[in-house]
């Protein structure tokens, strides 16, 4: 059996798509796991998107804790005999999957960008060395656990004729010695760089926080209106919130157009934007690494170039 779990609905739907492909190839059933309260509408939706079964683990756990979710999934895997387990690679999933793998004494591959059978073995691909390479790996034992980031697979179209069972079971979980004291939503302006079609990004080439207006202005006239940034702007200077941060430890983006101004182009930044359509770089250093990853570039002072570029784009677009 192929089992899919994430606390993120969208990600679960994406994984169900890949999961049903794998299940078909194995001649096995596909099960989606829901943890917490039963939710008929959610179960229906999972079934309409490919699940043959929805396993609802009813518990009184209020918030996610890796220790407790691990115990739950361990029981569910043992009970269902699942051999292939896909877990959504959000922050919760990424700390859950390896702990679960350790409890089951088994293998786990995180952040898979592809998943298929080769020589009858489940084979995974993931990006390593900060975007320098793809590692191809194979499981040699079961259960096999893979985590899948969002937007790697497209959900199946909704099929209301697809049928499936909903199974409910109560679980008592041993409480972890850790305690959640506070959950604080981060200040958000509702920026979503991951869905943006056009992104204009700033880096340490900007001297003051107020100068970010220069990228704002350009982004404003380009469809998308999204501003991104390198790590130091969000993490060290805190001029922009984390939702703008692009790179290995920030968001991974693939807009049609990515403009990087005053960004040197270190590999950890490239790791977040390398799949962009057209990449443009503006940097005063002709040797800057960013030009190697760019389709177009202008060597020069961003303080001179950005206002001119904004005007020229405005004119061109009418």
């Amino acid at each position: 059996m192929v089992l899919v779990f994430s606390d993120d609905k969208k990600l679960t739907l994406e994984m169900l798509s890949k999961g049903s492909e794998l299940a078909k190839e194995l001649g096995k059933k596909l099960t989606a796991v829901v943890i917490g309260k039963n939710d008929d509408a959610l179960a229906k939706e999972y079934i309409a998107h490919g699940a043959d079964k929805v396993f609802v683990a009813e518990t009184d756990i209020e918030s996610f804790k890796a220790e407790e979710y691990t115990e739950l999934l361990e029981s569910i895997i043992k009970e269902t005999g699942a051999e292939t387990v896909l877990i959504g690679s959000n922050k919760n999933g990424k700390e859950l999957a390896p702990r679960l793998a350790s409890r089951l004494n088994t293998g786990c591959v995180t952040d898979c960008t592809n998943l298929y059978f080769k020589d009858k073995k489940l084979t995974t691909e993931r990006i390593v060395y900060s975007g320098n390479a793809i590692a191809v790996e194979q499981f040699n034992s079961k259960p096999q656990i893979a985590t899948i980031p969002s937007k790697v697979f497209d959900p199946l179209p909704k099929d209301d004729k697809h049928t499936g069972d909903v199974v409910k079971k109560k679980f008592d979980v041993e409480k972890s010695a850790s305690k959640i004291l506070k959950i604080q939503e981060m200040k958000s302006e509702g920026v979503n760089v991951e869905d943006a079609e056009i992104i204009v990004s700033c880096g340490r080439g900007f001297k003051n926080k107020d100068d970010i207006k220069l990228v704002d202005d350009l982004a404003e006239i380009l469809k998308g209106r999204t501003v991104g940034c390198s790590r130091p702007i969000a993490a060290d200077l805190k001029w922009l919130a984390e939702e703008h941060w692009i790179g290995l430890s920030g968001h991974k983006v693939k807009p049609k157009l990515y403009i990087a101004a005053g960004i040197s182009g270190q590999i950890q930044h490239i790791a977040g934007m390398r799949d962009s359509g057209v990449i443009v770089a503006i940097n005063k250093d002709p040797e800057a690494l960013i030009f190697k990853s760019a389709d177009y570039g202008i060597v020069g002072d961003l303080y001179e170039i950005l206002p001119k570029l904004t005007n020229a784009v405005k004119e061109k677009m009418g």
Partner: protein
Amino acid sequence: MNIIVCAKQVVDVSEMKVDSSTKKPILQGVPQKISDIDKNAMEEAIKIKDKHGGKITVLTVGPADAKERIKELLAMGADEGILIPYPDKYDYHVVSTLLTEAIKKIGEYDIILCGEASIDLFSGQIGPRLAGLLGIPQITYAQSVNAEKDKITADRNMGDKSVTTESTYPVLITVTKEINEPRLPSLMQILGAANKPINDWTVESLADGLNPKIDAVELNGIPMERKNIIYKDNVDESVKNLVDSLAKEGVLR
């Protein structure tokens, strides 16, 4: 307070080159270093020790030359290092089992600190696996911690939210790069580190019959083919050329 810091020697990814014909990354001859975020874990361990006293042990599974890297952590403030060689074949299951057995052999510990992930492969498996094998709580992605006598609290960076978690000891904590700025040891500390012990522990003394659950098949390059059209002369002309090109690409709509 007994603190164990797990640190990995990694290739410096910013120094990696790609073979121009095969497009595969060249792994030989790349400078090695302690994974950046493991140094943040080390720094946090020192801060906790400064407050509560105790001992910091650095634990590494790595090649023989990792000893030089462990010395850097001893210079920063660790008391002792332990190096376990890589077995012929290994994956996260194998490495985390070896680390767990080593931790059990060390015996007494209150806090295990790791980086949230190593900067070469960025899997983030070791921390949660160790906590799972040891059956202790895990606090991952910590961006600040406050260690008290019999409990520890941490603010965890969960992207769109910050979660404050508390735990008793023993506990495993993984830290983010933002948690602190790792110190640079002084010359005195570097010289002093030469007298601190680094013990070699064999694989056989910790576990036998260990086999990976994952087999590496191949490592492929990711071709980054870009046009690399760079305008560098007159700014006005450069801007005009760029806008014309972008219009042709169809991205100005």
